[in-house]
Structure formats: structure tokens, C-alpha cells
């Protein structure tokens, strides 16, 4: 198991956001967490990436206990993440956005004197090309359209050469055509690089099209878990979540 979330509970001043959640993701798997708004999906992500500390429970990544480690350490251990609301470096160019992530990954950030533009050019351009942003390299990232910003998010996450890629609602706010393109791109990248993917989603078509393992969260607890078929057939899930839309 690449990632093991073991009986993790997080409460904020008495409000229990997630309770006794267990999630496992195997190497190379494409796993998904679904659930209605407020179910705790983003909280789980934040717990995994170290932005929040669990009140109880442990999290293991590559069999190493990462509970309580700061986000930058967890990132260095091999996790990459995109965020639900685009979380980029707005006044930097697209190129700079990705380059700084590559530089950090390559541990070149304490270099005080080499002009940075001479470093890691090839890797950065390759990443930009892979997420379809090669033409936008010099654009100021904050001025890009939403779709492009999402692509940039992916590019930044990939720059850390993660073993586990966490994508928080990667297709939020996209049109059906854009969603299809985004998912195709993500699947392609994941397969080519042999990554493990864990993502959260609202769009059921997306979920059922690529997710090999689905965890359903409801009010902070795991409701069901299994393959697409299993989850679709689960009466609890249908009642709570899919029932309204089925």
C-alpha cells in the first residue's frame, strides 16, 4: 500500500469533520473519494498533505508514518497536490510557476548566484508541454483563463515528480468538453509516468470512467468502498448520494 490512512479523526473545537476514516491506495492505482459537499473530502486531503493535523489516527506513506509532518516535508517525500480553488503564484509567469517547483524538487533553491533562467529549462518546458501550456509560457499566470490555470496547477504538482498525485476536484467548473479533455490528459500522464492517483470529484461520469477504487464519504465517515460497480450497486450509497441524481 502506497498510502494508508488509518482511523483518522479530525475535530475542530468540538465539530467533528471526519471520523475514523480509513483509506488505502495501492501503488499504481487510480482511486477516488466522493461524497456530497461537506462530507470531508478536502479535510481528508488536507490531513494527508500535512496542512492539518489529525486529532486521532495515523497516516502512512510508503510505510513511513507521516502524521504530523509539515507539508513541505511530505511533498519532498513524494506527494504532489493540486487544489480545489486554483492555488498558483499569480504574478509570476507560467514558466516561473513551474520552474520554481522544479528547482525546489531538485534542491537547487539555495543557489544564490546562478541566473535561474539558465537552470532546469528543459525540464520546465517539457512539463509545460505535457500539460498543454507551452504556448503560454510567458503569460502572467494570474491573467490566464480558469481552464489554463487548472492545467498549470497540474503542471506544478507534477514538477515535484511525485509518486502519489492528489487532485482536489480537478474538473470543477469545467464544461463537459473541457472535463473530458482534462480527464484524458490526467489519465495519460498518470499511466505514462506510473503514478498513483487519488482524487476527489463531484462529476459521477468522471469518477466511473477512470476510478479503479472509490471511497464514499458521508458526513465525515466512510460510507462505502469498492469498485465503480460495487459502489453504484450499494443501496446505502444510492440512498444517500446517488439516489437524487440516478
Amino acid at each position, binding site marked *: 500500500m502506497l498510502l494508508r490512512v488509518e482511523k483518522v479523526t479530525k475535530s475542530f473545537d468540538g465539530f467533528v469533520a471526519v471520523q475514523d476514516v480509513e483509506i488505502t491506495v495501492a501503488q499504481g492505482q487510480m482511486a477516488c473519494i466522493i461524497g456530497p459537499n461537506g462530507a470531508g473530502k478536502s479535510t481528508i486531503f488536507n490531513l494527508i498533505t500535512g496542512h492539518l493535523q489529525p486529532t486521532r489516527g495515523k497516516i502512512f506513506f510508503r510505510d513511513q508514518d507521516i502524521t504530523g509532518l509539515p507539508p513541505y516535508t511530505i511533498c519532498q517525500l513524494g506527494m504532489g497536490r493540486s487544489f480545489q480553488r486554483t492555488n498558483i503564484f*499569480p504574478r509570476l509567469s507560467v514558466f516561473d510557476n513551474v520552474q520554481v517547483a522544479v*528547482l525546489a524538487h531538485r534542491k537547487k533553491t539555495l543557489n544564490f548566484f546562478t541566473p535561474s*533562467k*539558465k537552470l532546469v529549462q528543459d525540464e520546465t518546458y517539457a512539463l509545460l508541454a505535457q500539460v498543454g501550456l507551452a504556448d503560454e509560457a*510567458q503569460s502572467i499566470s494570474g491573467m490566464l*483563463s480558469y*481552464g489554463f490555470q487548472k492545467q498549470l496547477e497540474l503542471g*506544478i504538482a507534477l514538477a515535484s515528480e511525485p509518486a502519489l498525485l492528489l487532485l482536489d476536484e480537478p474538473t470543477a467548473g469545467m464544461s463537459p468538453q473541457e472535463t473530458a479533455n482534462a480527464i484524458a490528459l490526467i489519465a495519460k500522464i498518470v499511466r505514462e509516468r506510473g503514478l498513483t492517483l487519488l482524487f476527489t470529484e463531484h462529476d459521477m461520469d468522471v469518477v466511473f470512467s477512470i476510478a479503479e477504487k472509490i471511497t464514499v464519504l458521508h458526513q465525515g465517515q466512510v460510507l462505502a468502498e469498492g469498485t465503480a460497480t460495487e459502489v453504484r450497486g450499494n443501496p446505502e450509497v444510492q440512498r444517500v448520494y446517488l439516489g437524487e441524481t440516478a
Partner: protein
Amino acid sequence: MNTPPTTLTVPRQVTVPTRTARGDRTTWIFVAALVLLFWVPEAILYMGWARFWITLLAEVFIWGLFAVAFNLLMGYTGMISFGQAAYLGIGGYTTGLLLKKISGFPFALGLIAAPVSGALAALIIGYFCIRLTHTYFAMLTLAFSMIVYYTAFKWYDFTGGDNGLIGIPVPAWVQDPTFANYYKFVLVVTLVGVYLLWRIVNSPFGKTLTAIRENPDRAGFVGINVKRYQLYAFIVAGAFSALAGALFMINERSVYPELAFWTRSTQVLLMSILGGVYTFFGPIVGAFMLQLMDADITKDYPQIWQLFLGSMLVLILYGLPGGIMGFIQARDTASTDDAATRVRKAMGEFSRKFWYFFAAALFFTAFFHILQAPDTWKTTVLLTAAQAVVGVVLCTWMLRQLNTFTQLWRVVFLVFPLLPLALHIALHTPLSGLMIVVLWAVFIYNYLWQAEIREAFGQPQHVALDIAPEAQ
């Protein structure tokens, strides 16, 4: 992944990165600056101008170094320090004490001791300060700088207290009656310092700092230990600031606690804002302009220096937040509006802010004129009122014309500041009065010549722009 088509298709320019060439070019700019500026004192003496200009320039260079060091924290890392002057004091006193108390202490070593002590102090102070953010960070840096000030002030036996440390021995080749040697010495040291900072800012370390400024959370999750890099930035800034402090000391051959007083910290802050915090050379430009205005106004009108400075600050904050050099507007760039809406909003902003500059230019023309000829103040006020009425009518009409997006009006607006400029020259108002007009012109250029608005001009777009909101 295609973006939804916008009403106004603005072709994006695909530029191949040519920055490698530019970077090397900048090194040559430094060399050129060194060569050109080196002979300025001789030129000044030859022209028969006052020697005071040589000292002024030397001081400007030191302030420039200090401002660039300060801006490493503010513009590049996003940490606003209200107590950077502490390092001026630490640098000045370290070098001063070493040179004075230890007889025969080598000058070069004393000079090097300044940035070293600055770095050490910044390490200690920074360790505490970086735990905080924004207002609290600013308050703590302020507290530490006042601690430095009061320590220097009260520790009479060691630092000479409020009498300062005087009579510090400095090699003879630095002192000379024309100050030319001192000037050259300062020029070389500050150029080297600024060059080093230039390299630092463009290095991977510098890029990391800008990432931290832009989005500390995201920077954390690309593997950057944000707090540690903030501390590094703090240390570098402290070191170079201390060097500046030592340079200040060398001119007077004395150092006083005032070097670390908090008003000096705000002064460097103002310089950076004036010149523009998001560019490297902005703070230097700001330092130059501020010292020039200071010399200019305190000569004849010392009583309104702060009034002028405050008005400049307010004007810049409202109209030109990116400072003189700030061609990256400090506006909300994460907007999801399409291009047409952005253009429309920008034009609206332009119209609104235009009036601030108008009011300021009008006010200061009148104000300076009254100061010069107080007896005729009634006439001046009447004339100003007339100017105001005419100006308001004229400018309102012009602004309306501007919204038709024809090229002619863009040029008209750019040329417009020549009018108040001519007025200032005719009235013999001090140099600083021209400053407002310069700022006004920069403001107009900034807005009307930035990429998207430039695209909008020359296309008869006002119909399309009217329906643009629905296109979202």
C-alpha cells in the same frame, strides 16, 4: 482544453524567451554605470556646481543600496519590515566601534565586519520575527529596531550614548575636501552590493522568495520550507543593510543612535513604494527621487516637506500602487473576467484615478505659488479655481472621448501632462512640483499602454464592450 470564445479576441503574443541575452546585458549596465558615474565629481567641480551635490549623490547611492536590500524583504519576499534601520545602526556601530576602540584596526576588516554583524543580528532577530506575519511581523521588527536604538542611546560607556561615537579613524584616502574620494569609494561599494543583490534576486533563491511572496501555502507544498527561506531573506537583507550603515558612518566619521530610529525605516519604505516594489531598480529610482525632492524642498520650503511627502505617498497609493517603475500593476490579477470586461474595468479605474492626479497637480501648483508669493494669494486662489472649472469640463469631455477607443485620444492623453508641466515651469515652482506631473504621465502611460488596453485601441469596440458583460 479550450477557453470559451470571448467577444474581443485578443491575440496572445507568443514570445520566445530571450532573457538569457538580457541578463548578460544587465551585467554590462552595471559596468557602464560604474564607468559613467565614476567621473561625476570631476564633472561637477568642473562645471562649478556646489560640492554639496557630490555628497548628495553619495548619500543617494547608500540609500539606494539600503532600499534594494529592504526591498528584498518587501517586494521579493512579501515581508514588510518596519525596523530595517536597526541594521543601519548595527552596521554603523560595529564598524565604528571596531575602528575606534581598537587602535590600528584595519579599515577593510572593519568594513567587512558590518555585513557580518548585520547577518548575525538578523539571524537572532529574524528567528523571532518570522514566526509572525503581516502587521504583527511589522510591529515586532519595529520593537527590535527601537531596542537597538535605545541600547545605543543608553549604553553611554560603550556607545557614547546620545552623543554618538565621534572621531572614528578612517583612512586618509577616503577623506578629502572635495568629497570626491568618498564618493568614488561609496560608488564602488554600493555598485558591488547592488550587483550582488541583483544576482541573488535572479537566482533560484530569489525565485523561491517570489514564490513565497505570491503564495506561501503553495510554496510550502512544492517542497519549500517557507519559514527557513524567510529567515534567509531576512539575513541577507540585514547584511546588506548593515553595510549601508557602515557607509553612512564613514562619511561623518561618526555614528549616532538616530541611525536606527524608526523614522529611517519608514523613509526607506517610502522610497521603495515611490520607485516601485515589484521591480529591482524601483527602490533605487525611489531613493534618488526622494533625496532629490528632499534637497529641493528643504532648501526653500522646509516647513512643508512632510506635507509634500505625505501627499506623494497618498497619491501613489491611490493612483500608482506599483510605483514609478511598476509596470506590473498591483491589482487583483486572479480575476476570472474575460478580456473585454477587464479592459472596461481598467478604463473605469483610469477615469476615477485620473481625478486624483488632477486634484494634486492643481493643489500643488497653487500651493507652491502661494508659498513663493504669499501676498498675491487671493489672485492665485481665484486663478486656481478658474483652472479647476475649465480643467474639469475639459477633462470630462476628454475622458468621454477616450472611451471611443480611438488612437488619437490615447495620444492626446499622454501629451496632456505637458500642460501642467508648462504651468509649473512658468511659475518657477520647485523641481518637486514637476514630480507630480511626472507621476501623472507615468500613470497615464501605465494604463493606456498596457497590453490589453493597447489591443483594445484601434478597434471600434464600444459596441462590443457594451455587450461584453453577457459574454461571461
